[in-house]
C-alpha cells in the first residue's frame, strides 16, 4: 500500500513532457495460462503456433511495432526456451527502433504472477500496452493512447483503457464468433467509463443485476451485449503495483478488472476505447483460431496478412483469395478453391480438392484427397483418398491412405493415423498421453505452465514411450501412432462450442428449442415474483425488500443444510468439538453469515437429530435431546457470544416447534430448562425473550404461555438474588 501511494504522488508531480519522454512500452504475455489449446500446447507454446503459416507472435509484434511501441517485454513461461530461441533467431532481435526483451519465468501460473514478476524487475516506466502474444490487430493506438493520457491528466485514478469492438454474440449459442462466451459490459456513454464487466455470466440466470449505486451515480448507463473485448489494454504503471498489492489477482479480467470495479475505496477507474473500422481479436480457443485465420485470409487484418508479413518468400495472392507460394507443386487436376493458402514446397496430387483451408510448408498431399476448412501445418503427409473436414493437423502428422478426419479433430505433432481409420468428431489426438490427474476447475485455467514444459516431452518421447505406443496402435487404426484423448465428463457438451468446426445444425436446433423452454420458465419465474408482490396493497419498496430477503433466505437455507451435514458428520465420525467449531466457522465465512446464524443452524441440526433418532415417547425424545445437547454444548456455546444470539436460538426453537419439529412443541419448557441448566442460555436471554414476546400476538405467545412457570421461577430466582 505504502509503495503504491508513493508511486501515485510521484506521478502526479510529473509534468506532461516528462510523461512523453518515456518510450512507449508494451508487455506481451507469451503464455495464455490456459489449457484450451491442449494437446498442441504440451509440445509447443501457443504463441509459436502457425496462424496462416506465420507464428502468432509475429502478428502481435508486427502490430506493436507499427503502432509505435518501442520496447516490448515478452514474458514467457511455458516452453520459455522455445519462445526465446525463436525470438533470438527471428528478425525481431535486430530491429533498429524496436527492442524485444524476454523475461523468463518458470513458476508463473497466471497473468497476475507474470505482472508481479515484471513489477519486481522494474522495467516499466510509464504507460504501457498490455497484450497477449496471440492477438491479431491492425488498430492505430494513437487515439486510444491520447485519450488515456488526457484522462490521466485529469484523474490519476484512470489507470486503464480497454479496447473493445462491436461484435454481437449469436442469439442462439450466446457466444461470439470468436467462440468466447458472451460478455456483458456497462459503460457510461459520456465518459466511456467501464462500470460492469461480466464474461462468465451464468446461463441459468435470466437476468444480470446491476448495483443500485451504479445506476444512482450515473444517470445514463449503456449495457452492452454487443461488444467484444479485444484484450488490448493501455495501462498505467499503477496496474503493476496493484497486482503486487493484491497478490491474489490472477486473471486479468476475472480478478483484476472485476476487482477494480467492485472496489470503491481506492476509486480506480477503467475506461473503454471502441474501435470501429480496424481489426483486433485474440485467439482464445480453436474456434477463434478458425475465425481469425479466415479473417486474415480475407485481409481484414491488412497490412498483417501473409504476403506482406513474409515478403521474402514470395507468396502470391490470386483470385478469390487464394495464396500460393512460388514453388508449390500442384497437379493439373487438383482443385484449389477460394480462400485457401498453400505454403512453400508443398506438393499436391491429382484430383485433390482443397477449399477454405491453410496448408503449410513442405507438405505432401496425395491424390483424391478432400480438404475442407482445415489447417494443415508443416511437413504433413496426407496419403491418397483421405478426407479432412474442419480439422487442425500439426507438424509432421502422417495420414495413411483413406483416413478420414471428422469435423473438429485436432491432431497434435507427429501423430500417425492408420489406413482407412476414421477419427471421430472432436477428437484430440497426441503422442503424449493425456495428463491423468485432472486439475481442479480453478487450476485448469492456469495450469499450462506447470507441467507442459520440456520434461514431459523428453520423458515420454524418448525410449520408454515406444512400448506404450505399440499397445495403443489400435487406437488410431493399423500403423497409427498416438493417443486419443478422452473428453472429460461434463466438458463433452461444451466441446463443440469451442471447436474449430462450425456448430452442427442439430445442436443449434436443440439450443433454440431449449431456449424457448428456458424463456417460458423465466417468464413464469418473473410472474411468480411479481404475483407475490402484487398481493400487497402498497408495493412501494416492500417488494424489493422481499426479493432481497428471498435471496438471503435461499442462502441461509443452503447454509443451514451445510451446517447440518457438518454436524451430522461430526456426530457420526466423532469429530472433536474444536474441529467442528472450525468447520462451522469456515462455512460461516464462505456463506458470509453472522455467528447468530451459526448458533441457530447448529441448534437446529441438534434438535433435528434428536427428533430423527428413534424414540417412542416424549420423555425419550427429551432424553435424546438432553444427550445431544450435553455432548455438543461446547460447539453450540462457541457461537453464542451474547444475549442477542441466545435469543436467536430461542426464536429458532420456537420456529421449529411450529414448523419442522412439532414433536418438540410439548417439550418446549423442558428443553428451555435444559438449555438453561447446561448454561447455553443465560437467564437474561430467556427473560428478554419473554419480555419481547409479551407484546406479540396471542398466537405468537403459545410457547411463552407454556413456559410461563419456568420463567416465573427464573424471575423469582432473580429477585431473590437481588435481595
Amino acid at each position, binding site marked *: 500500500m505504502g509503495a503504491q501511494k508513493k508511486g501515485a504522488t510521484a506521478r502526479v508531480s510529473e509534468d506532461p513532457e516528462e510523461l512523453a519522454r518515456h518510450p512507449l512500452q508494451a508487455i506481451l504475455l507469451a503464455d495464455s495460462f490456459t489449457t484450451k489449446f491442449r494437446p498442441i500446447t504440451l509440445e509447443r507454446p501457443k504463441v509459436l503456433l502457425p496462424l496462416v503459416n506465420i507464428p502468432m507472435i509475429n502478428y502481435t509484434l508486427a502490430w506493436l511495432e507499427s503502432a509505435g511501441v518501442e520496447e516490448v517485454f515478452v514474458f514467457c513461461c511455458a516452453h520459455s526456451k522455445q519462445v526465446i530461441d525463436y525470438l533470438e533467431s527471428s528478425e525481431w532481435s535486430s530491429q533498429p527502433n524496436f527492442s524485444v526483451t524476454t523475461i523468463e519465468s518458470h513458476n508463473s501460473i497466471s497473468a497476475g504472477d507474470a505482472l508481479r514478476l515484471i513489477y519486481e524487475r522494474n522495467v516499466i516506466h510509464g504507460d504501457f500496452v498490455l497484450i497477449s502474444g496471440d492477438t491479431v490487430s491492425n488498430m492505430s493506438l494513437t487515439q486510444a493512447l491520447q485519450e488515456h493520457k488526457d484522462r490521466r491528466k485529469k484523474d490519476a485514478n484512470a489507470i486503464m483503457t480497454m479496447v473493445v469492438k462491436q461484435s454481437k454474440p449469436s442469439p442462439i449459442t450466446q457466444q461470439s464468433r470468436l467462440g468466447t462466451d458472451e460478455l456483458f459490459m456497462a459503460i457510461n456513454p459520456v465518459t466511456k467509463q467501464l462500470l460492469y464487466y461480466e464474461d462468465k455470466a451464468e446461463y441459468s440466470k*435470466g437476468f444480470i443485476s446491476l448495483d443500485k449505486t451504479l445506476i444512482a451515480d450515473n444517470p445514463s448507463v449503456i449495457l452492452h*451485449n454487443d461488444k467484444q473485448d479485444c484484450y488490448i489494454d493501455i495501462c498505467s504503471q499503477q496496474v503493476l503495483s496493484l497486482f503486487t498489492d493484491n497478490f491474489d489477482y490472477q486473471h486479468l479480467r476475472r480478478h483484476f478488472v472485476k476487482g477494480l470495479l467492485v472496489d470503491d475505496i481506492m476509486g480506480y477507474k477503467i475506461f473503454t476505447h471502441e474501435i470501429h473500422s480496424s481489426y483486433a481479436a485474440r485467439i482464445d480457443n480453436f474456434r477463434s483460431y478458425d475465425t481469425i485465420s479466415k479473417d486474415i485470409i480475407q485481409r481484414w487484418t491488412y497490412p498483417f496478412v501473409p504476403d506482406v508479413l513474409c515478403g521474402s518468400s514470395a507468396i502470391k495472392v490470386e483470385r478469390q483469395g487464394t495464396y500460393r507460394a512460388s514453388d508449390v507443386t500442384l497437379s493439373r487436376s487438383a482443385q484449389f478453391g477460394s480462400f485457401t493458402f498453400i505454403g512453400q514446397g508443398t506438393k499436391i496430387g491429382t484430383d485433390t480438392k482443397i477449399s477454405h483451408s491453410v496448408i503449410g510448408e513442405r507438405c505432401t498431399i496425395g491424390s483424391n484427397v478432400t480438404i475442407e476448412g482445415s489447417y494443415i501445418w508443416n511437413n504433413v503427409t496426407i496419403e491418397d483418398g483421405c478426407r479432412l473436414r474442419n480439422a487442425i493437423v500439426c507438424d509432421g502428422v502422417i495420414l495413411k491412405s483413406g483416413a478420414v478426419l471428422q469435423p473438429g479433430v485436432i491432431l497434435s505433432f507427429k501423430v500417425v493415423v492408420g489406413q482407412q481409420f476414421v477419427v471421430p468428431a472432436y477428437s484430440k489426438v497426441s503422442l503424449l498421453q493425456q495428463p491423468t490427474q485432472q486439475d481442479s476447475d480453478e487450476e485448469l485455467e492456469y495450469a499450462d505452465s506447470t507441467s507442459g514444459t520440456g520434461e514431459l516431452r523428453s520423458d515420454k518421447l524418448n525410449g520408454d514411450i515406444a512400448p506404450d505406443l505399440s499397445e495403443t496402435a489400435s487406437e488410431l487404426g493399423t500403423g497409427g501412432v498416438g493417443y486419443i484423448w478422452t473428453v472429460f465428463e461434463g466438458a463433452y457438451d461444451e466441446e463443440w462450442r469451442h471447436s474449430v468446426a462450425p456448430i452442427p445444425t442439430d445442436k443449434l*436446433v436443440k439450443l433454440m428449442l431449449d431456449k424457448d423452454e428456458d424463456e417460458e420458465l423465466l417468464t413464469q419465474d418473473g410472474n411468480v415474483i411479481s*404475483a407475490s408482490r402484487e398481493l400487497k396493497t402498497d408495493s412501494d419498496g416492500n417488494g424489493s425488500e422481499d*426479493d432481497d430477503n428471498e435471496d438471503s433466505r435461499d442462502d441461509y437455507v443452503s447454509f443451514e443444510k451445510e451446517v447440518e451435514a457438518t454436524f451430522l458428520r461430526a456426530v457420526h465420525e466423532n469429530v472433536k468439538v474444536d474441529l467442528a467449531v472450525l468447520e462451522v466457522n469456515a462455512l460461516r465465512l464462505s456463506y458470509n453469515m453472522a455467528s447468530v446464524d451459526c448458533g441457530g443452524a447448529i441448534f437446529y441440526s441438534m434438535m433435528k437429530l434428536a427428533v430423527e433418532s428413534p424414540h417412542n415417547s416424549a420423555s425419550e425424545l427429551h432424553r435424546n435431546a438432553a444427550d445431544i445437547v450435553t455432548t455438543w454444548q461446547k460447539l453450540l456455546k462457541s457461537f453464542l457470544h451474547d444475549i442477542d444470539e441466545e435469543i436467536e436460538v430461542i426464536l429458532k426453537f420456537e420456529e421449529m416447534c411450529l414448523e419442522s419439529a412439532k414433536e418438540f412443541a410439548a417439550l418446549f419448557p423442558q428443553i428451555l430448562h435444559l438449555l438453561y441448566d447446561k448454561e447455553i442460555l443465560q437467564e437474561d436471554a430467556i427473560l428478554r425473550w419473554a419480555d419481547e414476546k409479551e407484546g406479540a400476538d396471542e398466537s405468537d405467545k403459545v410457547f411463552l404461555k407454556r413456559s410461563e412457570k419456568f420463567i416465573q421461577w427464573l424471575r423469582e430466582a432473580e429477585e431473590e438474588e437481588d435481595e
Partner: protein
Amino acid sequence: MDFQVVVLAGGNSKNLTPLVSKELPKPLLPVANCPVLNYVLHQLEQSNLKDLIVVVEGEDAALLVGAWISGTFIDRLHVEIAAVPEDIGTAGALRAISHHLTAKDILVVSGDLVSDVPPGALAATHRRHDAAVTTMLCSIPVSGPLESGSSGGKDKAKKLGRYNIIGLDPSKQFLLHIATEIEKDARISKRILHAVGQMEMRSDLMDAHMYAFKRSVLQEVLDVKDTFQSLKEDVLPYLVRSQLKSEALLNRTPQGEENSNEKVSSQNNQAFISRILANASTPSFHGIYSENPDGSSSTRKTHKCCVYIASSSSYCVRLNSIQAFMDINRDVTGDADHLLSPNNIIGPSPKLGTKTTVGPNCRLGEGSEMGDKCQVKRSIIGRHCRIGSHVKVVNSVVMNHVTIGDGCIIQGSVICSNVQLQERVELKDCQVGAGFVVTAGSEYKAESLAKKEK
C-alpha cells in the same frame, strides 16, 4: 382519433392529508386557484381528445368532481364520470370500467398530472409503432424549494429514492426495462438484452403516469392477471417483461394487428427474428425451424413497448405529495406560468391596505381583502380571504375563505379553506386542514394541523 381517454382522478389521497377532505377530493385540489384536474382536461382538449371517462374513487367524490366538470367543461368535452371503490389501485380502477372501453386504443392519464406535454404526441407515437403500450417519460423534476438550486434538488431526488430505472433501446423508442425501486440492484433480462445488443439504462427519467394501451391487450391483461393492482408497478412491467414472447393470452388479438406488426422493419423484435434466421445458414435449418411444433417462425408473438420522451424543457410533475403540491403551485405561478389555462379566472383585484406589498409570482383570488403593511411573496391566496394587518405570507398557499388575524407570519405552509388563524400565529412548513382554527399567538413548525374526523 379513435382514442378513448381514461383519467384516473383518484379520491382521498393519504399522501395529501390534511389538504384533501370529503368536501375537497384530490381532483379538485386548487393549484393556483384552479382544480388540479383542470390542467389535465385542458391539455386533453388541446390535443382534441374529447372522449373521456373520469374515474374517481368514492361516490361522494365522484359527485363533487362530476358537478365541477359539468359546470366547467360543458359542451367542450364528452365526459363520463365513473365512481370506483377506494384502494383498488389503478389497474383495479381500469378493470372496474373495462366494459366501458370500446375504442381501439386507450389513453390512461393520471388526474394529478400537471404538464405541458401534449397527450396527442403520446397518442401519435403509440399509433405510429402500433405498440401494445406506450408510456410517457419525462425528466425528473427538481424537487424542493427553489432556493436550493438545481444541484440540491438533484440530491433530494436521490434521497427520495423514488425514481425509475428505465432501459431503452439505442433509438430511444422502445422500452426494454422498467423498475420502480432503486433500493435493490437492477435486474435486467438477458433475453431482451440479447435481442437488442445494447440497452441504455437511465435513471434520470420518470414515468409520468400517462400511458397509451392497445385496448385488446389491456383488457386481456386485466382479465387474466387478476392480482394486478397497479398499472405502473404491475401491468407495465409485465408487458415490458414479456414483450419478446407474448404469452398465450395475447394470441387472441386479431390477426390483422399482428400482421401489421411485422411490416415495421425497423422494429427490434422482428430484427431479432430475422437475425436468428440469418444465422441459420443452411437451408435445412430453416426447414426445421419452421416445422417447429410451436408453429412457423413468423408467428412468434411479440409486442412492442414504446416510449415517448418529453423534451427536457417541458414541465411535467405529478401532484402526489405535499411537497409536489407546493412545488407545482410555485412553478405554475412562476417558471411554468404558461400552464395557466384561460379558464383560470383571475378575479378583480382584491382590496389591499396601505403599504401592503404583493411580490411577483403571486396570485390573489377575487374578493380577498388584506389589511395594512402586509407582505405577500411567492404565494397564492384564494378567494374571499380576509387577511389582517402586518401579515407576512411567504412561499405558501392559502385557499378560499380563510381568515388570517393581524400579525400572522406564514411561511412555506398550506392553509386550507375556511381556516381561521387568530392573531400573531406563526406557521412554518405547516399544513392546516379545512375548517381548523389556530388559536392566537400559537407557533407551529413543520406540523400538520387538522380537525378530528367526526
